[in-house]
C-alpha cells in the first residue's frame, strides 16, 4: 500500500543517485577526462542551461510528435480492442498479427517512413504510434477479457444491451489495466520520437543529439539525454495525473 511508504524509503533512492553523481563528477575531475569524451554532471547541467532556449525548441517538436503519436495510438487501440472484444473472428484474425508485428525492430523500418513520408513530423509520429500501440492495446484487451463473467451474466439477466454492457461494465473495469499500459507507452513514446529524428529530421531532440555527436560535443549529447529523460518522466506523470481524474475510485482498495 502506497500510503505506508515512509520517508526513509523515499530518501534512500535519492541519496543513492546523489552518491553516484558525486562519484561521477569526482572521477572525471580526478582523471581529468576531457569534455569531449565524458563530461561531468555539473558540466552537463551547465551546457543544458546555456543551450536552454535551443534545446527547448527542439524538445517542443519532440513533445509534439509524442503527443500526436500517443493520442493516435490511444484512439487506434480503443477501436481495435473494442472490435476484438466484440467480434471473436476479428480477434482470432488480428491478434497473432499484432503480436508478431512486435518482433520487427522499429529501428529497421523507421528509415522506410523517411523515404515514404519525407523529413517532416509524419514519419516520427508513425514511429511513436507503432511503439505505443502495442502496450496500450494489449493491456486494454487484457483488461476487457479479465472482466468477471458473473458481471456479464448479471447484466444479461437484467436484459442489458451489448453496448450498455461494454460502456457500463467492461470499459470501466478495464481502465486500471489500460492505464498501466498507457504509463509504459508514455515513457516509450519519447524514445520512439527520438529514434525517428535520428534518422533524419529538421527539428527535435534526436536531431540535436546527432548534430552534437557528429561535432564531438558530448556534453550537448548528454544535455539532450537529460532533456529526453525529463520529457519521459513528465509524460509519465501526466498519465498518472489523468488516471487519478478518470478513475478516482481505483484508489480505494478492496476491503
Amino acid at each position, binding site marked *: 500500500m502506497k500510503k505506508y511508504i515512509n520517508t526513509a524509503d523515499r530518501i534512500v533512492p535519492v541519496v543513492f543517485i546523489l552518491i553516484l553523481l558525486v562519484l561521477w563528477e569526482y572521477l572525471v575531475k580526478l582523471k581529468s577526462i576531457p569534455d569531449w569524451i565524458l563530461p561531468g554532471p555539473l558540466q552537463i547541467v551547465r551546457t543544458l542551461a546555456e543551450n536552454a532556449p535551443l534545446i527547448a525548441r527542439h524538445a517542443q517538436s519532440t513533445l509534439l510528435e509524442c503527443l500526436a503519436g500517443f493520442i493516435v495510438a490511444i484512439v487506434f487501440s480503443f477501436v481495435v480492442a473494442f472490435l476484438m472484444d466484440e467480434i471473436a473472428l476479428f480477434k482470432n484474425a488480428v491478434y497473432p498479427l499484432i503480436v508478431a508485428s512486435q518482433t520487427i525492430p522499429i529501428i529497421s523500418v523507421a528509415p522506410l517512413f523517411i523515404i515514404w513520408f519525407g523529413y517532416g513530423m509524419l514519419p516520427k509520429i508513425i514511429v511513436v504510434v507503432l511503439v505505443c500501440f502495442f502496450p496500450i492495446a494489449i493491456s486494454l484487451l487484457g483488461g476487457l477479457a479479465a472482466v468477471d463473467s*458473473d*458481471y456479464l451474466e448479471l447484466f444479461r439477466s437484467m*436484459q*442489458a444491451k451489448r453496448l450498455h454492457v461494454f460502456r457500463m461494465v467492461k470499459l*470501466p*473495469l478495464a*481502465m486500471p489495466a489500460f492505464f498501466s499500459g498507457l504509463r509504459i507507452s508514455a515513457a516509450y513514446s519519447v524514445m520512439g520520437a527520438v529514434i525517428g529524428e535520428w534518422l533524419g529530421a529538421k527539428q527535435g531532440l534526436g536531431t540535436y543529439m546527432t548534430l552534437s555527436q557528429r561535432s564531438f560535443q558530448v556534453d550537448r549529447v548528454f544535455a539532450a539525454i537529460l532533456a529526453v529523460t525529463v520529457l519521459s518522466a513528465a509524460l509519465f506523470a501526466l498519465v498518472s495525473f489523468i488516471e487519478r481524474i478518470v478513475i478516482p*475510485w481505483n484508489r*480505494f482498495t478492496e476491503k
Partner: protein
Amino acid sequence: MPEIVVEGISKTLGGLLTLGEINVNAADKDFVGILGPSGCGKSTLFNIISGLMRPDQGCVFIDGHDVTGKTGRVSYMRQKDLLLPSLNILENVSIPLVLKGLPRKKACDQALEHFKQFGLAGFEKYYPRQLSGGMRQRAAMLRTYLFSSDILLLDEPFASLDAITKRKMQSWLIDVFNQINPTVMFITHDVDEALYLCDRIYVLSECPTVVKLEIKIPFCRPSHGRTIVDPVYGVIRDAVMEALAI
C-alpha cells in the same frame, strides 16, 4: 400473480447429468428455501429459472406464462455483490432503472426513495470498495429489488459474510421483506438460515439432482430474531439434516 412453477427441469453440464428431474414452485409471496450440497446444481437451477440458461427438458412458468430461456422477468442476486467499483452506491443501485430506459437523474431519484428502507441512507456517495460486505449486500439487494420487485432469486446472498454480520443481515432481510412482500427463492447451504427465513424448504440430493425432501416450516421469520425454542424445530432440523445425509 407472481408465482414460479418449475416443471421437470433437467440439465446436463459437461457431459454429467447435473439436474435430474426437478419440480419446484413458489406461490405468491412465498419464501422458498433451496438447500443442497455444494455442486449439486442449485445455481444452475437459478440460471435456468432466470432464463440465462436453457434446460434440456422441462419448463419454467411465471405468472402462468412460459418463460423458459427468457430473461427479464425475475431478478437474480448472487453471493458476490457484483457492484461496479467505478460507480457509487446510488449509481450502482439505479442501474436496472437506467437499463429499463429511465434517464439517469430520474433513475437515481427513484432509487433514492428506497435507501432508508434498505438501511442504506447516508451511503449514497460512497464507492462499493469503501463499504463493508454487509452494506454491499444491502446495496446489491436493493439493485435486485429495483429490477423486479415481486420475484427475487437469491443465490447464497450471505454466504461470504461473517457469522455476526450474517445474523444481522438475516433479521434485516426479514424486516425489509415484511414490508415489500416479494415472492422469493433462496439458495443456501446453511440449514439454520433456511429454517430461520423460509416458509418452505426443498432439500436437493447429490448429482443427478432431484428434490429429496419438501418441508413446510411453521415458525418462519420470527420477529424477535432470537433462537427458536419450539420443540418442533429440532424435529424439522433433524429431518432436513437426514435428507442432506449429514
